[in-house]
């Protein structure tokens, strides 16, 4: 451990970023799905800052009830306050908490990192919402939570607006699902919020192309007709998804695990899907094309859905780092390319980008 740490420190030398900590995470038996996501989230700086802030505010709570949020805040604080710059930390309490909260992650089986991320973010949102409503009901000593309260204020009075927590502020975007009835041509638009986008993938394609397909027009017909309120019947319709409000942190999940009907099981798609280090969302309804920069990639290693390993690539202060449980190494930016996938179905390369984390660049108008 120490040796690995010093190697990284040596590699970075004078360039070791001030105040930054690069710590590997111990694996408690197939917890790499958790470790890889934690590293990506830790290096999601706006998220980390909020979490550290939360820890500071809630260090000595009256009732020291432990939940996933406090455990995560605890872990992040533990990492960021290490005296040493590099090393290994055991996220024991956090992992125990995860296993307590969700039986899915209780066993020692290989788990899906995206499912875990989804569970974690939603859990954090729940906890924050609960705390917020509790704070509103009772005491006034928690100004921070009120500050994170509803964006539109309480003008609506009785009508309860959904809370916008800092998790939302970081990850939430809004999709508009437009459906046009092909008979009466009425367009029904429905907004949906999302914390990440799950994209279907194709062999030898790019994220840009996958996003385009995601927003492309789809015809609903045959078995799949649309119930038009105006026509009061099932009709053929055209449906498309548009990004109405792009999120600050854009999380893209590549659907690499596909259910193959005639096999009766899931199969891993090792397709080569290239992802640029900078990305723009074109099909948004906002005026400006919002630009994003890639800062983390959760990589699935292995050939099947039920086994394998997760590692993560993280960009911190313009250096790329490779986190593999306890180990942290520096990698060249160009090495990110080796995680795109395989152009051929059978290939020795089994390390494939699975979840991509992009942060919106601040110089863009929003």
């Amino acid at each position: 451990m120490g040796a690995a740490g010093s190697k990284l420190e040596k590699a970075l030398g004078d360039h070791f970023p001030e105040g930054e900590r690069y710590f590997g995470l111990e694996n408690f038996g197939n917890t790499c799905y958790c470790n890889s996501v934690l590293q990506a989230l830790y290096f999601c700086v706006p998220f980390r800052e909020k979490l550290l802030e939360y820890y500071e505010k809630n260090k000595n709570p009256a009732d020291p009830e432990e939940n996933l949020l406090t455990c995560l805040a605890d872990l992040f604080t533990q990492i960021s306050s290490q005296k040493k710059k590099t090393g290994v930390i055991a996220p024991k309490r956090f992992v125990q908490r995860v296993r307590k909260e969700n039986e899915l992650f209780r066993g020692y089986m290989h788990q899906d990192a995206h499912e875990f991320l989804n569970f974690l973010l939603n859990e954090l949102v729940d906890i924050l919402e609960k705390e917020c409503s509790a704070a509103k009901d009772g005491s006034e000593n928690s100004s921070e939570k009120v500050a994170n309260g509803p964006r539109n204020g309480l003008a609506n009075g009785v009508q309860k607006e959904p809370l916008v927590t800092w998790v939302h502020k970081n990850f939430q975007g809004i999709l508009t699902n437009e459906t046009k009835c092909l008979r009466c041509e009425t367009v029904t638009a429905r907004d949906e919020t999302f914390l990440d986008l799950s994209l279907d993938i194709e062999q030898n394609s790019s994220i840009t192309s996958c996003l385009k397909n995601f927003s492309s027009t789809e015809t609903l017909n045959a078995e799949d007709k649309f119930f038009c309120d105006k026509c009061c019947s099932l009709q053929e319709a055209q449906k498309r998804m548009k990004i109405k409000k792009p999120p600050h942190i854009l999380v893209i999940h590549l659907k690499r695990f596909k259910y193959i009907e005639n096999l009766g099981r899931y199969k891993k798609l090792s397709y080569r899907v290239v992802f640029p280090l900078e990305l723009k969302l074109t099909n948004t309804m906002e005026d400006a094309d919002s630009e994003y920069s890639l800062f983390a990639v959760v990589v699935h290693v292995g050939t099947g859905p039920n086994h394998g390993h997760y590692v993560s690539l993280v960009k911190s202060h313009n250096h790329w780092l490779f986190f593999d449980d306890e180990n942290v190494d520096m990698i060249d930016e160009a090495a990110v390319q080796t995680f795109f996938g395989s152009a051929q179905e059978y290939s020795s390369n089994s390390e494939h980008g699975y979840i991509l984390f992009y942060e919106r660049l601040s110089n863009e108008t929003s």
Partner: protein
Amino acid sequence: MNNSSTNASTTSTTSTTINGGISTPNTGLKNYFKTPEGRYNLHSEKSHPSTLLHFSHGKSVSQVTLANLKEKSASTTPTSSSGYSATSSVRSAAAKLLGTSNGGRALSFVGVNGANKVVAATTKTASIGNSSNGGSLPMANFDGKGLYIIFNVGDTLYIGDLNTQEKDPIKSINFANSNPVCHTFNPEANAKDGHDLLIGLNSGEVYTVSLRQQLQDIGKKLIGAQVYNKDGSINNSRCTSLAWVPQGNGAFVVAHADGNFYVYEKGKDATIDSSFSLIKDPTHFSVAHAKSNKSNPVARWHICQGSINRIAFSPDGTHLAVVGRDGFLRVYDYQKEQLLCGGKSYYGAILCCAWSMDGKYILTGGEDDLVQVWSMEDRKVIAWGEGHNSWVSGVAFDPYWSPPSSDSTGENVMYRFGSVGQDTQLLLWDFSMDELVVPLRRCPPGGSPTYSAGSQSSQWDSAVPSGTLQPAPCMRDVPKLSPLVAHRVYSEPLSDLIFTQHTILTACREGHVKVWMRPGSSESISTDSETLSSSTEKTPIPNCK
């Protein structure tokens, strides 16, 4: 684009005869594609023995260089010459060969446009070679002429004979310490040492050799090479692109992955290392000259942070286009060492670039899946080609294509260009300024609302120390082009594209090259000298009016 036949490769009569040379385990790949001017048929494939493992130094992407070997002896043929007159006499010979004045001009920059694109330029001077050396092994007294391709796979550089349908390379050269990653050929090579092939390595080392000399040797080592930047002593980052300076008397430019490129001159002692001043501000452009005028390299240009991905000289050699990781196209006045103009991609790195034959337009392609058309006159992006489903890895204008209705007024100039991408597709595009649908332009935020033609042209020749770089345009502001043809070439991502007079060459990353016959070309690309002379009656650069 493709016709309605089944997924299985449709075997045309032409291709059946060639199938010996074509191994197609890939289903769903057609061996022809249709364009308005006719059908392009797969003529042959050039590949490498796949049983060998080439990855002793890691993988690298295959690039292709086209080489046109002329008659051997300098004194016996009019196409070569000695000493200083080399360039001009080659040019005039070519002009004669091509039968047009444009031809001479075209030839003068041959082989200089950056690694491969340029090579496309090389080809235009040659009708596809002769078959004098059909598929034979290198011979000690090798005196072949004609067209050859050079491509890199792993630690090996292969030379394939384009004069035959032979699939296997006629020569392979192993590099012991590092992978060859880029190469370019200069048919105007100085006759003195005949070094016409430039090879850049992953280690940063650069070699110049005589292609003919390699073909004369049966070994697997580079013969008679001159090495530059030995052991990366000047720059140890990867070579990314090479270019012979047009009419540069053997001078060449080597771009590296750290955002610098170096100018080397021939005949200077490569063993004396040049020392350059430190780069004070890596975010700024700077040019440093070697302190000693005996050493090599003679100059270092610091372009950008991150890698330079491709460099290409304009046909007349006055301008140098540089594209790279930071997503910018930069165009420099090479002699004045000044930035003329440039701009940012929509997003992501730019991976390739190529000039039009008349030097008016630059194509770029990159990680935004777009083919970008840059106008030198407007100094901005004038069109985006949408059609690739992944990154664009190779672009080139087709210098041999002529518009269907020869509107000889010269008012409406049409261009044909091609692009290949990691989506395994070859796309062909037609482009004419007149047909661009320009979206209503809003005032760009923070910029001047219009480009005034007057101020533009006055700025054009002015000695302003540095030009300006345009920010990335908005999607809605740029006119869009749609491809004329989309053809899936391989099951692997493509890496390179070359137009020759009779063919289009496409290469995939793993080092397989396909040769597509143009419609109306003879069944064989190997033409003897008679057909050669007759075919030269075609105007080589129809879009150059």
